[in-house]
């Protein structure tokens, strides 16, 4: 019997999180992410986990941080205004180094926007949504199967780096139904919760970084009597009004992701071997971009596609390499133009960068991206 199942992206995301060891979810209903909460409510108790529907988006974020501190891998999910409301505590997770995954099934904004319509307008919010300096990891799947895989990856990264990770889905992938075959549990690599490296008597401090710059913070209830705060703190976890510590902590938070950047920056290339032009896309839009590129190839245009799976940290190296190779880059995104700024920063004038933007609540048609490719080849927009 085939193990293939017909499944929605949001459902696959639930399956992936559970497979990665998630046992706690706190959430609030909001379109188009609600199926994630519904799936968690149904499946978590079947594996001994817990689901709680909170009074609002802020509480949903707070409850998963509490659960994570008490030792459970935890996820929350939302969309649009809900993600905006969560921002303060996403910053708390970054500052206090609490593993957590936030699923953002993007819809049209700002504000209530177009609640049921797809968008990729939260690219910059994912990076800069909360106040202050902090790094961010954001992953964006393009298929139902990849919603599963990136959910596993997001949970693993959150644990490995003790940081919030955003699973930056979009309504296209969230509500897409595809036939998928999910991997066996034995085939899934799980990053376990980090453990304290020594006892209190041996001088344990909860925020002393390990060699990879990530601390091995104890869970609550393990006898370490740790203090966790959103204030800038030293290795002991206690707040300290010191310029030196403030600088060092801020730098370490960035460095712990930066030194692993190559490893966690996932990019896939299609038709790029002999490509003279490249389309950069991600998430649901990459599906359309792929078809557009394939159609252009049939017309004899030497164009390829670069798909970003990791949105943050940005794929500087991969994009730079492409810029040195091609005559022009087209960035296709379902917003007014966000990722294109990052591409321009990295390309730094080495080749023309054109934007193929769409922000009318409908998804791209392949012809629209093909037209963008034609313009790029013809030497830019008139």
């Amino acid at each position: 019997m085939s193990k293939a199942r017909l499944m929605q992206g949001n459902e696959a995301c639930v399956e992936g999180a559970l497979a990665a060891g998630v046992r706690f979810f706190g959430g609030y209903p909001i379109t188009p992410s609600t199926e994630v909460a519904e799936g968690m409510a149904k499946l978590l108790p079947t594996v001994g986990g817990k689901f709680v529907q909170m009074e609002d988006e802020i509480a949903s974020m707070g409850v998963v941080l509490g659960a994570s501190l008490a030792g459970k891998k935890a996820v929350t999910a939302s969309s649009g205004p809900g993600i905006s409301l969560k921002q303060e505590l996403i910053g708390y997770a970054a500052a206090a180094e609490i593993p957590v995954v936030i699923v953002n099934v993007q819809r049209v904004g700002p504000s209530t926007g177009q609640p049921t319509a797809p968008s990729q307008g939260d690219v910059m919010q994912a990076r800069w949504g909360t106040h202050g300096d902090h790094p961010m990891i954001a992953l964006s799947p393009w298929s139902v199967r990849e919603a599963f895989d990136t959910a596993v990856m997001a949970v693993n990264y959150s644990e490995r780096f003790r940081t919030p990770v955003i699973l930056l889905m979009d309504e296209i992938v969230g509500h897409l139904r595809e036939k998928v075959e999910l991997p066996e549990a034995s085939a899934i690599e799980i990053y376990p919760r980090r453990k304290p490296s020594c006892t209190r008597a041996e001088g344990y401090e909860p925020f002393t970084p390990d060699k990879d710059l990530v601390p091995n913070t104890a869970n609550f209830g393990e006898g370490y009597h740790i203090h966790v705060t959103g204030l800038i703190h030293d290795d002991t976890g206690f707040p300290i009004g010191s310029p030196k510590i403030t600088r060092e902590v801020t730098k370490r938070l960035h460095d712990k992701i930066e030194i692993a950047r190559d490893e966690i920056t996932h990019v896939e290339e299609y038709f790029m071997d002999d490509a003279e032009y490249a389309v950069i896309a991600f998430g649901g839009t990459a599906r359309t971009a792929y078809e557009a590129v394939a159609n252009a190839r049939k017309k004899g245009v030497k164009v390829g596609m670069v798909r970003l799976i990791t949105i943050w940290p940005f794929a500087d190296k991969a994009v730079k390499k492409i810029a040195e190779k091609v005559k022009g880059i087209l960035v296709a995104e379902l917003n007014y133009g966000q990722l294109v700024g990052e591409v321009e920063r990295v390309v730094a004038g080495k080749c023309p960068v054109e934007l193929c933007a769409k922000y009318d609540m409908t998804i791209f048609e392949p012809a629209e991206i093909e037209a963008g490719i034609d313009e790029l080849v013809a030497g830019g927009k008139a």
Partner: protein
Amino acid sequence: MERSFEKYFRQNRLPHLWCPGCGNGIVMKAIVQAIEKKGLDQDKTVIVSGIGCSSRASGYMDFDTLHTAHGRAIPFATGIKLANPELNVIVITGDGDCTAIGGNHFIHGCRRNVDLTVVLFNNSIYGMTGGQASPMTPTHKKATTAPYGAIDRNFDACRLAEAAGATYVARSTAFHVQHLTDMIAGGIDNKGFSFVEAICQCPTSFGRKNKMADPAKMMMWMRDNAVMKAAWDKLPDDKKTEEKFPIGLFYNESETDYATAYNEVIQIAGGADK
């Protein structure tokens, strides 16, 4: 003199940052004495606080401690308790933290009946930011944001908690230390959402604005105006003046707590042995 409560403090984090004459230290000590009285395992007890003067208490207490964001202590505490129900979770919050920015979390915490003990340090003011009016600043009292006297009507947090579904509701003051300790201990005993309002003095930010800058006088005000519930219930209405207020245990009803109820969900879903 018996000072066994000292083991519950992080001696290297003291002295505290509170102003001279502040009541927060009295309430903090009442909490640890209630913990001692109930014999809670220090390794299995978590103190969760929000933001504000009172919420700094968590840093001085030798347990696993969590200083959350403004108003958010109850959601964090809910996650801790549900993730690991063997932990005793005590929440420290203030009048602004709990009933203004955290008001929604407060009423839903009560409704959900998660097994938490929430101690609200009510000093009637935002102390850390320098004396702004809170939802529990009594009407007509002055604050930096109510220089002509507050016109807002103030919350009675105990009645709010009871109406929202808390299963243990009590009030005491920093003057009635032993009584306050007993009220908190009773909250720890209750397996469900327990709420204890601890009225305490802020001579610096509230007192100075309201002709009560002397901390001892503020405590005498508590002594003179707090009425034990049994006596309050018999007090004729004309004696229940604006200044007078009841203290004691107002409500205690046994109801299934959230974690216990969720265990039944896990049973039904077939995840009990997972």
